[in-house]
């Protein structure tokens, strides 16, 4: 069915006429030329510098290499899932605080949200890596990466949740109240389930950021994908192949997250 508008382009543009179609083909070709040229030049340069030589690639045929990458992948997933779970719980609580009836609670939550959104992740990493141990508190290495990554995400998660809650029509609350439901029940049974559906796309973006932030694990020697990649590079002196493969794995992870989100919806 062509007349069903479900592609974003259908909302942005008219159906193209014959002139527009020709123009689209022309610009497609024009933009493909430099991309093809760049790819070609890159390959040539790598070839000239010997980066494509078999010795830099052959270790990918070994089972141990992939086991090592797999271990790194597990480390990344472990860190991302832990950080994501912490960020969701604390983000939810901060959102509750931010929309609380108590002015003090609102102000404190707003301040925490601004703070966690404003400070770079690396700073939190250093804080948990260098400052926290000085207090004598010894955190397991998983938490040393997951906590700072989570904290730098909670502010955004809180605001995303809040935007969802604000998007639920006021009539939903009124209807639930008029039936005699208590405020807390109205929130958990009527408002939040709807708000959550509205914000799934934004939450996915935030999960992707969390996954990417776990690459800071190399700072504290937590064995994630990035850290293990560095080890491989120093063992085989093969920067290009390792970074290339690892990038593809990160892209795959985030692609899978997106697919999962689509399935949930």
């Amino acid at each position, binding site marked *: 069915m062509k007349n069903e508008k479900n592609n974003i382009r259908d909302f942005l543009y008219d159906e193209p006429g014959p002139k527009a179609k020709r123009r689209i083909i022309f610009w497609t070709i024009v933009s493909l030329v430099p991309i093809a040229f760049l790819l070609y030049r890159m390959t040539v340069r790598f070839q000239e510098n010997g980066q494509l030589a078999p010795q830099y690639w052959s270790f990918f045929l070994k089972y141990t290499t992939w086991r090592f990458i797999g271990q790194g992948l597990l480390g990344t997933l472990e860190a991302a899932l832990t950080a994501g779970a912490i960020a969701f719980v604390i983000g939810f609580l901060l959102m509750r605080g931010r929309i609380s009836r108590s002015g003090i609670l609102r102000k404190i939550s707003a301040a925490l949200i601004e703070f966690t959104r404003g400070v770079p992740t690396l700073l939190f990493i250093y804080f948990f890596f260098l400052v926290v141990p000085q207090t004598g508190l010894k955190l397991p290495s998983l938490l040393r990466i997951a906590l700072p990554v989570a904290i730098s995400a909670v502010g955004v998660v809180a605001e995303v949740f809040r935007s969802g809650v604000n998007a639920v029509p006021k009539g939903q609350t009124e*209807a*639930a109240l*008029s*039936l*005699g439901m208590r405020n807390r*029940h109205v929130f958990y*049974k009527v408002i939040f389930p709807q708000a959550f559906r509205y914000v799934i796309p934004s939450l996915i973006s935030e999960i992707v950021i969390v996954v990417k932030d776990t690459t800071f694990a190399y700072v504290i020697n937590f064995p994630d994908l990035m850290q293990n990649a560095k080890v491989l590079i120093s063992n085989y002196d093969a920067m290009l192949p390792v970074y290339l493969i690892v990038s593809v794995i990160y892209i795959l992870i985030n692609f899978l997250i997106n697919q999962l989100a689509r399935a949930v919806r």
Partner: protein
Amino acid sequence: MNSEHKSGAETPVIELRTVNKYFGTHHVLKDVSLSVRQGEVVVIIGPSGSGKSTLCRTINRLETISSGEILIEGQPMPAEGKELAQVRSRIGMVFQSFNLFLHRTILDNVTMAPMDVLHIKRKDAEEEALKLLRQVGIEDQARKVPAQLSGGQQQRAAIARALAMHPKAILFDEPTSALDPEMIQEVLDVMTSLAKSGMTMVIVTHEMNFARNVADRIIFMNDGAILEEGAPDEFFAHPKTERAREFLASFRNEQKESEL
């Protein structure tokens, strides 16, 4: 009239005593007093902006009042908490924009409050819900979500949802104003049969024929105050105030135009 000697003298289900409300400096309800007896159907009409919706919404405290008193079954309306929720659970409300819970099926919409507030078991609540949906003629829509229903069906579902709490009275806040013309009648039919079954109703509407047929009493509001009050035949035939005559004339013109 001496109510003490009247057998069955009862406290009104809803009573408003000199209620005033301000939105900022805007005086939206002016000394409004109103009492609704058990089984009575009171229809509030008046030009838009006259405060009739606001009046309707103050009765279950979706709008607060600035001064005056609201009594439900003789008891002052609680200001908050469990007590307020308890009173609200006995006063149903039907909204202009239906306000069905968009994320749940029609059946869930009807069972949610009975299960949550009255702690009725799911099985019993669903049985009752299906009976009510049959009563309003949409039992075959029970498993759909609101967005799959027409406006008229949604509003009938909303009425079933209100009925599921076995309310003492139901407030209707312009229940047909958001509907396409051909769907208005199906909702009015449900409301008419409710009225005949003895339900206590307060209805804000622009449907004059319906008002005339169903109302026990018409309230005419203008500029935040009750200007006229009386039996429908009397009111529609001989409005006492100039403002009411103007208001009714505008409707008659509209009707004539649509007949041409």
